[in-house]
């Protein structure tokens, strides 16, 4: 530890001498703070909760670890390269903006950097990961003023940009997962020949095949990198709810409404929506409901607003999945509800404080 402290001090001195290098100070400050914490003390109230934003974001990342390990197992060690690229380029954008703004580096990209690769198809080229994350962080967050001021979830902005800009690669490039033995832990990537698979939702929509639910729960089917190991996502989500990092209202409302909507539509309108259990366990619904729709910055902060957002998200997802040209609807519905978040909040506040 002393060694690290000595190195940090040397770096500070080095940076202090040079006018241009001095601009890199936020980077050093961030490293210093992350390593050693703060020496500031409270005024009044005299004590402060031990939870800080670093811990807050760190817990979200920790909750995603089972999904990441499973992803490596299913898709090979290349997943780690994808995550590394996402962190490096996302972090670079964050650092650039911190330097230009002369502000501290904020911890928000810790979560964006891990969620973004998890919602990409396993075969995505690395350069595309970089392009996507740069676009997402830049136009999803930094242009609005950084963490806390963004309207959209940066990971989803990046992902939707990629699916619109490169539809072929993003929609067709599904690999079959490894299974048995060491799986992907011993391979870099599945061979290109194995790229003949469709996601459960696509199978249902195009051919009417229903994937067994146990299969989907444990993730041995095609899908985005982090969305298939659903039992791990559920565990991670419940963990976050338990430690209050995530509010339970949005996931609950979301996960009830989507199957319910499908059920009602199927029983009354003779449509061809996927069955409730397929709705619940397919695509990115669980990842979206637990980790993306609940992003505190871009979801409503009022409690009734959270219920409203959850219900709207569920119905929209089932609607897009069932009736639109797209197979998957989670990302679009979260993006759309992000737009409505300020409206939902202000309506709730108006109603709540109207009478007084």
């Amino acid at each position, binding site marked *: *530890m002393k060694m690290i402290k000595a190195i940090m001090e040397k770096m500070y001195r080095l940076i202090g001498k040079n006018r241009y290098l001095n601009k890199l100070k936020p980077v050093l400050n961030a490293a210093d*703070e*992350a*390593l*050693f*914490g*703060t*020496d*500031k*003390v*409270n*005024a*009044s*109230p*005299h*004590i*402060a*909760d*031990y*939870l*800080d*934003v*670093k*811990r*807050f974001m*760190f*817990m979200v990342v920790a909750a995603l670890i089972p999904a990441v390990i499973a992803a490596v197992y299913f898709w090979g060690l290349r997943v780690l390269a994808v995550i590394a690229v996402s962190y490096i380029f996302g972090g670079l954008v964050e650092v650039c903006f911190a330097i230009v703004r002369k502000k*501290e580096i*904020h*911890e*928000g990209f810790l979560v964006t950097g891990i969620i973004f690769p998890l919602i990409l198809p396993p075969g995505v080229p690395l350069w595309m990961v970089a392009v996507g994350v740069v676009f997402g962080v830049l136009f999803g967050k930094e242009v609005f003023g*950084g*963490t*806390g*001021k963004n309207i959209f979830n940066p990971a989803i902005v990046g992902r939707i940009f990629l699916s619109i800009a490169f539809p072929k690669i993003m929609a067709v490039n599904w690999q079959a997962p490894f299974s048995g033995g060491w799986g992907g832990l011993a391979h870099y990537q599945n061979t290109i020949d194995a790229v003949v698979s469709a996601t459960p939702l696509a199978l249902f929509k195009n051919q009417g095949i229903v994937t067994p639910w146990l299969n989907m729960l444990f993730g041995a089917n095609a899908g985005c990198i982090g969305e298939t190991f659903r039992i791990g996502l559920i565990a991670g989500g419940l963990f976050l709810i*338990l*430690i*209050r*990092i995530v*509010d339970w209202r949005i996931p609950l409302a979301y996960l009830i409404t989507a199957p319910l909507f499908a059920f009602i539509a199927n029983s009354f309108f003779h449509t061809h929506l996927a069955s409730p259990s397929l709705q619940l366990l397919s695509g990115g619904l669980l990842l979206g409901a637990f980790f993306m729709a609940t992003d*505190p*910055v871009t979801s409503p*902060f*009022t409690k009734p607003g959270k219920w409203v957002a959850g219900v709207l998200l569920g119905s929209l997802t089932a609607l897009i999945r069932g009736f639109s040209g797209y197979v998957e609807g989670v990302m679009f519905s979260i993006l759309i509800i992000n737009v409505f978040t300020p409206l939902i909040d202000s309506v709730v*506040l108006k109603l709540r*404080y109207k009478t*007084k």
Partner: protein
Amino acid sequence: MLKKIRTFKGGFKFQNYPGQAKPLFVLAGIPLRVVIPLNRCSDVDVKPLVKKGDTVFAGQIIGRDDANILSPAHSSVNGIVEDIQRVNYFNCDTAMVAIRATDSSPEIKPLAGYAGDWQKLNNEKIEELIFLSGAASLRAVSPEKVMHVIIQETGAEAYNSSLDLILEGKNLLNFIEGAKILKKIMPQARVHLAVNRQHKKIISQIVNLTAQMDWFEVCAFKPKYPQGALAVLLPAILNQKIPYDSCAANLGVSLLQAQEVLAVYAAVTRGEPFVEKIVALCGPGFKENLHLKARIGTPLNEIIKDRLKSTDSVRLILNSLLSGPALEDLSFPLDKRFSQIIAIDDHRQREFLAFARPGLRRDSYSGAFGAHWLPGIKKSVDTNQHGQERPCISCGFCADVCPVRIIPHLLTRYVRREIINEILLSYEIFNCVECGLCSFVCPSKIPLLKQIKSGQEKLIAEGFCAKK
């Protein structure tokens, strides 16, 4: 009569803080010099009745003003008035009477007219005794109009003085006699004892002893902070909605502490003026955590300095970790308002990789640290901020813990952007009870309470007054 009461929404339970004061007390002895403030935390002083060089005796009234509601100030030792000067005392300009003690006899001259059998006294005499003893300030409302007497012993702070000690032995009976005395001069009043429900023994004793008294009610509360705040306590006890800006006096409510009820009893039956107070010395900064019975006016230097582990890098806090002021000047005297003095580490040390540690002793509103799931482990407590200030991420913790259901992060957003108008009023900024929980739980370390207060000040400065 025991009344079960539903708790309020929000709030936070401070559990297992290290260094709770043990239920025993030591006598501090007669100090060589005392300083008596002539102000009880309001804008006006009582008028001094003595001047420099006068000889005074313990229990003598040295400041009194019959025109306002303040109770008189007493000398707490036999001695000579050294000086009367004005100082800044907790942000009030206050006259302080310094008295040099001439002898160390513990005797206190009783007030005239007391009677061991207080039933014989008439109401006027009892009222006069209570007023002259300074036991309790009952003048805010005329006693006939008081509808509710609330004895506030909710014990919901992180550190509390021990009710077991205050009501130990004979004091429990005296306490109930004190309540009877109050009932006699306030014939319309109901007496409510708001008490931490973990004091099972005391509660059952009091319930048994007061079985015949249908006007006496024991309200057992969860010790959830800030249960003691008036705006939270009143609606729970009276079971009705109370406008937040109404003061207790207008509602016909008189608020007391158990020690004051005991002082009422002592004043009426033994003629004792209120010149001694029990304070709890809490927190890991003290060598020994116990209670101290000391004369009011004793400078803190004398009673506290030797009991601290070290005098540097320690912060002394009065009464409450969250809403109490810091005691920066140890030449200040012990005052009637003091019930706990808390000493915690003024922690400026940095900690390696603090955010990634399991945190078995770290108290947090969220469950993100091990301490949340391991009951019974002593928490660590210090003044460190535990993180850097960051922009608000609307996590909603502050709104969740707020005992009066306002949304601190929303108000802060408005105040920071200098949007000072009716919107702030309509978001009920003046309901804030200044409990400080929002600032405590904020993971972004935003001083929410400070912003809310400054918003209130700006609103008042711009001519928007609190909504009626």
